[in-house]
């Protein structure tokens, strides 16, 4: 039955994708992309990927929409040229045909005998309780078994943030000029109800973010999702009160320090492994009891991930918003 739900949602997904491609209005396309993300997240959830669903929601429906809207505000809303370019469809069709061709030998959805479920993966499921002793196997792999990938992931985000800073510049006018009441720097200050409610919600979002951060070992969640959520809370504040107040609450220097600090923390935890006699990113040596060491290590690196992601998202958001004020 739930498989049918999945089929239904997938069909909606395809329809949404068609609509995104066909609409010439970019704002509409961004809205539809929000729907696309929500559908995607539901599908992930149905396919047992709770952590991924949470990330897709925070990123796809949250941060990504905000970023696209910020960019749209600085560019144009309508797509002008519609060049058909039919021959370009050839590589597309070739790629699609290849994939469909490949499906004939693929294991079907949910086949327990598929090779994926035979090698490596059972080891993780079996050994995690014993070696790392946290319930969320995804977090265990993310933090420890494949912690080196996650290190790379943190630096991908950092690189993007550095790039956005280099491209868009980071200097702000200290406070938004009070002369233009309608300017965007004012945020939604004139909308009383959203403003009151938003201010009420912000502490809860931050609190929930912290919960996701530190509960990631037991349930879905972890550093990345938490970082995105906390960043979303600050972005909400910036939307409500305007850029200036948001930057007094979390100043740019703090954001930059967060970006760098989290990444450095992650590498330092890895190097601590070497200093204490293990390999790079070996948390077992951090404490006398290897399992406790793993706990500590995962906690620290998740913290590093969360701090860096939060800093990077905020810095990217502010870089776009600052352009708006010029």
């Amino acid at each position, binding site marked *: 039955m739930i498989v049918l739900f999945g089929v239904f949602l997938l069909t909606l997904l395809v329809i949404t994708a068609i609509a995104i491609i066909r609409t010439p209005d970019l704002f509409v396309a961004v809205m539809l992309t929000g729907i696309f993300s929500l559908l995607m997240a539901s599908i992930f959830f149905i396919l047992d990927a709770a952590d991924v669903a949470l990330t897709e929601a925070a990123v796809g429906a949250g941060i990504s929409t905000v970023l696209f809207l910020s960019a749209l505000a600085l560019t144009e809303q309508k797509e002008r040229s519609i060049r058909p370019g039919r021959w370009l469809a050839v590589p597309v069709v070739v790629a699609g045909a290849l994939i469909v061709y490949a499906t004939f030998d693929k294991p079907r959805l949910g086949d327990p005998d598929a090779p994926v479920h035979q090698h490596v993966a059972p080891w993780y499921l079996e050994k995690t309780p014993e070696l790392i002793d946290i319930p969320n196997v995804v977090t265990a792999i993310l933090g420890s078994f494949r912690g080196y990938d996650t290190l790379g992931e943190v630096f991908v985000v950092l690189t993007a943030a550095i790039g956005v800073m280099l*491209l868009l510049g980071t200097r702000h006018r200290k406070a938004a000029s009070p002369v233009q009441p309608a300017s965007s720097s004012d945020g939604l200050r004139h909308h009383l109800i959203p403003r009151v409610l938003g201010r009420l919600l912000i502490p809860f979002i931050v609190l929930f973010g912290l919960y996701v951060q530190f509960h990631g070992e037991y349930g879905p969640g972890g550093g990345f999702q938490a970082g995105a959520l906390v960043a979303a809370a600050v972005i909400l504040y910036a939307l409500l009160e305007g850029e200036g107040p948001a930057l007094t609450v979390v100043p740019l220097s703090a954001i930059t320090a967060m970006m760098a600090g989290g990444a450095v923390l992650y*590498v330092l935890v*890895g190097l601590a492994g070497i200093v204490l006699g293990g390999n790079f990113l070996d948390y077992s040596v951090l404490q006398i009891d290897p399992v406790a060491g793993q706990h500590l290590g995962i906690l620290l690196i998740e913290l590093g991930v969360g701090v860096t992601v939060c800093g990077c998202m905020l810095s990217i958001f502010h870089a776009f918003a600052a352009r708006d004020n010029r």
Partner: protein
Amino acid sequence: MIASHWPALQVALPLLVAPMVMLLRGATLPWLAALVTSFMAFAIAISMASTVLEGEVIVYAVGSWPAPVGIELRIDELSALLLLIVTGASSTTLLAARNSLTAELEPERHMLFYAAWLLALSGMLGILVAGDAFNIFVFMEIASLASYVLISAGSDRRALPSVFKYLIMGTIGATFYLIGVGLIYMMTGTLNLADMESRLAEVEELKPIMVAAGFITVGLALKAALFPLHAWLPNCYTYAPHIATAFLAACSTKIALYVLLRFDFVVFQGNLIGHDVQFSGFLMPLALIAILVASGVALFETNLKRLLAYSSIAQLGYIWLGASFVSKAGLTASVVHMFNHALAKGTLFIAVACLGLRFASLTLQDLKGAARFMPWTMAAFVLAGMSLVGVPGTAGFISKWYLISAALEQGYQGVVVIAVILISSLMAVAYLWRVVEAAYFGEALTSSSSTTAEKMSEAPPLMLAVVWVAALANVYFGLDSTVPLALSEQAATALMEHLR
């Protein structure tokens, strides 16, 4: 004791310093930090290369988890050589970076540029040490994103559309790669390259694997700017900051080629029946066309940087040609040409950076008479150009020689190949001659010389020293190429062993 951790430190060190560089202020401090880090990475690479030269493959388990479950770092001869290329190119170009960059980017953004540089460096190093397919993807993205950042710092506005195109094509390439890895993972259940090879042998349904091979090859070919997919490269190299061009031209596309060689020889070649035939039958003509077409375009190019960019595409064709022989001699030629081309092209672009300090526009028209103001720079340029052409006594000659002797083993096909190599070498002489002609024999435009007469002088001493060290290295490795050749030959042997 610490030497056993070199593989991890090779990547971790620049990663650790990059965020710190971001916090530094001014133009000098970030540069110094990046420079010192890069040289430390170079030292680590040298140390590992000497270990590998003794015939030992370095294997390192990150997090102490054993290979298929954890991520394994693996440094063999091929990766050791490329580590040398990347760290060496980064260190050399960074030496020259400060003078060059000050002219192109306001000092408040230098720290971001150097942070991105270190990230690009560590991304490339991460790909080279990785023994895990997905890990390669992650570090490939670090390297790519950082490269986009470096290029987008270019002062010409055309850098922006170029880098956007690169971003789109690069991401398509990376996503194709991810699809391919996903399909292989689906059929084997593992992400470790060595494990993949052994488990693929047992897989019976080959359709997904064939498709995966296609996606990975196309994806990486996009990243490596192999011939029909090279559209992003010329503009990016032309409009990037000069010194970033030098760094990227020396290393970035070769990294993608490295991954491609890895996959084709280690993972696919032995396991896909008939793949051997496709490989040479399909890629050799492409490589030949690439060499001829790109050299031909370079003949008519008027912008110096773009001319060299097209020459890069042709040279990538050489590397690819050697690999498409699927023989030990061919692979040796291919790998050693990676080294020699990095050397020659890096030197040429550093020389271009010197010219860029004095000339606002780098079209051949504007460069007329440049040798009169900058004789030393132009002399180094000529020396590196000779290496690019393959004049005996320079590094380029070694790889051409190996390539031709590998082609001789190929029978009648070899004759065509040799003919193409000779023709394209002549074309290289021709297009480099156009630069030399403009610089040495061209009459300087009166308007520009009168207004900027006192500005027209030789490049700063540091840059000049760098470009000459690099140029002399071209000669040195032309006379005594023991180290790169030994590594290349061992690498070729190791790769050929995977073919059963």
